[in-house]
């Protein structure tokens, strides 16, 4: 197997005296989907924020295509251009239309022509079934539609890896499906994905690897069948038992 696209090595991150990540290792190979699971406060979101350089790490490294992007001499803006991030709360820009949200980075950051960016955005919106909403403003869309636009916005920069931070957690249950359908499609087309999720059923179907995060470390990881069906660690079993209790697996 070739070198991973994204390689998180021994990452430590503290906010004041609160140590959130205590040396996390996660690798995502090309065309692979890795799902981060774990309770709230286990560090999933912080890990994704470190990987997307929205936070600086205290120790350890993040390698993108083999390059140490946590090196302070690296231009973080240039690194972020190669990543796509989707947030829990969509974070669309409310003063821009759907089309403007999607074409902003391709034109401003990547220097593509307006026409090219618009054509690509339209094609992507078509794929997620939102071509007719291109001229709308985000607050006219449902949560599920907004999150699909956010995925398109992240894809429009043609990222090396897509980082998804609990992207269905803020959605009404009946809207979760339409968003996950898009993610599944994107994964099937070969996108490299690292995602934090509470949707165990979805992780089981789509992920190649599941990593269970607990108290700032990856306690165990492996194929879904192994981690979800035959967990080795007591903490993992405990977590999964609670998830099953809640009817989420």
């Amino acid at each position: 197997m070739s070198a991973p696209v994204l390689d998180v090595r021994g990452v430590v991150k503290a906010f004041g005296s609160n140590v959130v990540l205590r040396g996390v290792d996660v690798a995502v190979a090309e065309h692979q989907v890795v799902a981060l699971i774990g309770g709230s406060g286990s560090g999933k979101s912080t890990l994704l924020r470190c990987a997307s350089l929205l936070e600086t790490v205290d120790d350890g490294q993040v390698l993108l295509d083999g390059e140490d992007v946590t090196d302070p001499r690296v231009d973080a803006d240039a690194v972020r251009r190669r990543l796509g991030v989707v947030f829990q709360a969509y974070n669309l820009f409310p003063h821009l239309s759907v089309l403007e949200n999607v074409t902003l980075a391709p034109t401003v950051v990547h220097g593509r022509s307006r026409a090219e960016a618009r054509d690509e955005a339209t094609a992507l919106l078509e794929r997620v079934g939102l071509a007719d909403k291109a001229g709308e403003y985000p607050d006219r869309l449902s949560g599920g539609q907004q999150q699909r636009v956010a995925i398109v916005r992240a894809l429009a920069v043609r990222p090396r890896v897509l980082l998804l931070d609990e992207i269905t957690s803020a959605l009404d249950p009946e809207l979760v499906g339409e968003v996950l359908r898009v993610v599944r499609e994107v994964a099937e087309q070969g996108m490299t994905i690292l995602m934090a999720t509470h949707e165990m059923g979805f992780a089981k179907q789509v992920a190649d690897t599941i990593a269970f995060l607990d108290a700032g470390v990856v306690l165990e990881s492996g194929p879904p069948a192994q981690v979800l069906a035959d967990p080795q660690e007591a903490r993992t079993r405990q977590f999964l038992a609670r998830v099953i209790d809640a009817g989420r697996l």
Partner: protein
Amino acid sequence: MALVSTLLFAVVAYLVVTRSPGWPRVQTTFFSPQVALDSLPEIARGLLLNLRVLVVGGVLVLVVGLLVAIARTLRGPAFAPLRLLATGYVDLFRGMPLIIVLYLVGFGFPALGLQGVPTSPFVLGTAAIVLVYAAYVAEVFRAGIESVHPSQRAAARSLGLTHRQSMRIVVLPQALRTVTPALLNDFVALQKDVGLISVLGAIDAVRSAQILVGRSFNFTPYVVAGLLFVLLAVPTARIADAVSARARRRQQSGHLL
């Protein structure tokens, strides 16, 4: 009902004032139609100067205020001196009465006797007003910038936009929309405070009125000048109301991001 009660109040107020013992005298010294008519052209000419200060000053206030606000929101140790300077400026000029700043700038600068320092009361008066108002407006802008949720900045940066691009394309447009009602309110205040440049000897509406009062021993020109300022302020006040109402509707209907 509202109309009736308003009318009733007006009638009572009118009767109380016009039946007061001093009313005939007040009427001739403050509300003489003849004096008002005679003084109007001169005061209106003076008002043109106020309008010039208002337009030039208003634009400068927006520019300086925005720059100071951005300076105050810069993060990182490299910008500490700039941040400190901006904070010191805001503290100083928000605290100091406008009239004192007018005296210090208007009489202090020319007294330096430096080559190239302007001595026109128009320029110095405008400068003093800009110094004070930009400090206020900077705080309005800063509140607006900070009201934009950090997740918006995170989204912008995650797309590869630089700090400057995020500010220009994502944060400032949203901040401006939020603070427009407050800015319009400050503009109404500015509209009448431009009358204070009269203390520097500029022949504006207030100063013209003063001269006319001195000449005729009749206070009506002050009333005329005052009413002209009110006429100037009313349209802005209505616009401010409309904009605030629209902003309120927006906030109530759309869900916040």
